[in-house]
């Protein structure tokens, strides 16, 4: 197990270097000049333009810029936003809890609905119910997120007025962030109605963000369950006179979860990508929206740092999933 962990970590290093190249290169490939964008409508004299470019170091050869960037990285310096002049890491850390909160809610929703749906579809194989569920999953899987988000906003916020349109909590509440998680902070604040408000703001974005992972998890659970249900050891379990609930919910599901856990882990990357869109639709102040804003402003350091940090998060999560996989699969645990 320890060797397994070591190999995984060793593998991360080159991946990380690759990501720095991509993060560094990506934003520079986009046309547009950060200095001009900063100046906005007012415009800029060519001398002032050159001076600013020089100040920011953007007039040096690209490889020099990259090496400087890498050197700073190694010292733990992710750079400073050229717009806000705040350290990139600080901005990221302030906004990250919002994204984590949204993503956790979404993945919770996706697992809590997707796994049971997949199990039921497998057990009721060939029934109308199964076809309906898998049809829905297919639709969810191919749902364009942006369109789906707008549709939900129009229906639930616009027409029905059930949920707010944007943000994390109603503006009538104000309290200092303690954990950065609005649900928890709202509870801690003790203000009446704050938790409810935070929750109602979370619902639609979570649904939107959960849609694709939910569909993927449901489909994966179903196919894993179908395979497991045909195994000899399921027959053994039934031959012991165990209840169907125990046979399916313990003996079958425990085995089916092994591939499903991997799928859930892979969904974290998908989730963070989805968060970028979802946060933009719902003006959710997380790192996704921040990335989009930074890209539009050509805030090179923010985009570089943000991409790197997000990639780091995905890698760490995948590592954790791998460990979890080893933990629930006895055959790996004992290697």
């Amino acid at each position: 197990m320890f060797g397994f962990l070591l190999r995984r970590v060793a593998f991360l290093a080159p991946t990380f270097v690759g990501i720095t190249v991509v993060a560094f290169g990506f934003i520079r490939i986009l046309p547009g000049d950060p200095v001009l964008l900063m100046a906005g409508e007012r415009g800029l004299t060519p001398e002032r333009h050159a001076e600013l470019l020089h100040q920011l170091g953007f007039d040096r050869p690209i490889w020099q810029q990259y090496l400087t960037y890498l050197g700073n990285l190694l010292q733990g310096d992710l750079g400073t936003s050229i717009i806000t002049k705040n350290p990139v890491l600080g901005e990221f850390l302030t906004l990250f809890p919002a994204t984590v909160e949204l993503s956790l809610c979404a993945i919770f929703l996706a697992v809590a609905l997707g796994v049971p749906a997949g199990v039921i579809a497998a057990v009721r194989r060939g029934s109308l119910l199964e076809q309906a569920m898998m049809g829905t999953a297919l639709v969810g899987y191919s749902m364009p997120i942006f369109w789906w988000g707008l549709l939900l906003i129009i229906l639930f916020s616009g027409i029905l007025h059930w949920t707010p349109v944007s943000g994390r909590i109603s503006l009538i509440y104000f309290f200092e962030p303690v954990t950065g998680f609005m649900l928890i902070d709202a509870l801690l604040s003790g203000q009446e109605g704050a938790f409810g408000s935070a929750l109602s703001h979370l619902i639609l974005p979570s649904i939107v963000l959960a849609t694709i992972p939910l569909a993927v998890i449901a489909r994966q659970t179903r196919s894993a369950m179908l395979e497991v249900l045909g195994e000899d050891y399921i027959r053994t379990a039934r031959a012991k006179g165990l209840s169907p609930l125990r046979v399916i919910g313990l003996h079958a599901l425990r085995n089916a979860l092994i591939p499903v856990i991997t799928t859930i882990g892979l969904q974290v990357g998908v989730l963070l990508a989805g968060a970028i869109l979802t946060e933009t639709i719902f003006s959710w102040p997380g790192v996704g929206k921040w990335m989009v804003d930074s890209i539009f402003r050509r805030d090179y350091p923010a985009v570089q740092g943000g991409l790197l940090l997000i990639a780091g998060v995905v890698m760490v999560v995948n590592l954790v999933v791998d460990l979890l996989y080893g933990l629930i699969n006895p055959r790996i645990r004992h290697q």
Partner: protein
Amino acid sequence: MALLEIRNLSVEFDTTSGPFRAVDGVDLTVDPREVVAIVGESGSGKSVAMLALMGLLPDGATVTADRLTFEGEDLQRMPARQRRQVIGRDVSMIFQDPIASLNPCFTAGFQIGEVLQAHLGLGRRQRRERTLELLRLVGMPEPERRIDAFPHQLSGGMSQRVLIAMAIACRPKLLIADEPTTALDVTIQAQILDLLLQLRDETGMALVLITHDMGVVAETAERVVVQYAGQQVERQSVRGLFRAPHHPYTHALLAALPERAEGGRLPAIPGVVPGQGDRPAGCLFNPRCARADALCRSVAPPRLEPALGEALCHHPVREPLA
């Protein structure tokens, strides 16, 4: 009263190419302490018949029987919950492939203990004690260590012992052993068979033994049923069968045994058991039978009297084997 009574059991599978009758009119009566063997080539419906009794067939299978009783209780009409109390406690089964039959995610001890919990309601401590006792009983080496082992850490023989421990955990009255030794090497085979017979002697349980191995039949069983293409083609005492098989199929099997009655697997006789598409009219054995005539090829044979091994045949063999 017989322990188990099966009359006219049939199983039909609903397959993509139409219905397939894998078990056709099977009868079986088993008394306490009795050892009955079921022999037959691969695909003759031995496993399916016993799985039908256990209620373990998949949804695509239709089971019909005139009578299916255990200790006089009708298994077919019994509510599912009540049937589950019989299955696993009073009637249990061990399967053909021991390694695949254990759940890879749970320890041996857990999988045995589960039966004790489900049927006897034993608590954690008692379960562990009884599980260790069972593992010792089935001859598991180092039971204290193996109780916490996962299936991938066990050999085939050890897996089979775990399955047997599981099956006998509640002192069943009937144990169905589906080729319990096929997957194991020869020395282990003998140990497992001895173990099953010893359990029979000690607890008085009856044993239905499915096997390919005529040697196993000769050594362990009192009665034997020969199955072919889902039908029981001959039913006799073991001694009678080895002396004078009456159905041409059984006759061919025994005549071809290298050292008759002494052992060996089922010898190959030319041809294969007809599958779904190629079931002939008349007697199902006619394409492979030396005695087949026009009658055999058009009319299904009758069931003959016990003196002729209850053979399903128009022209039974009447002379004993040389």
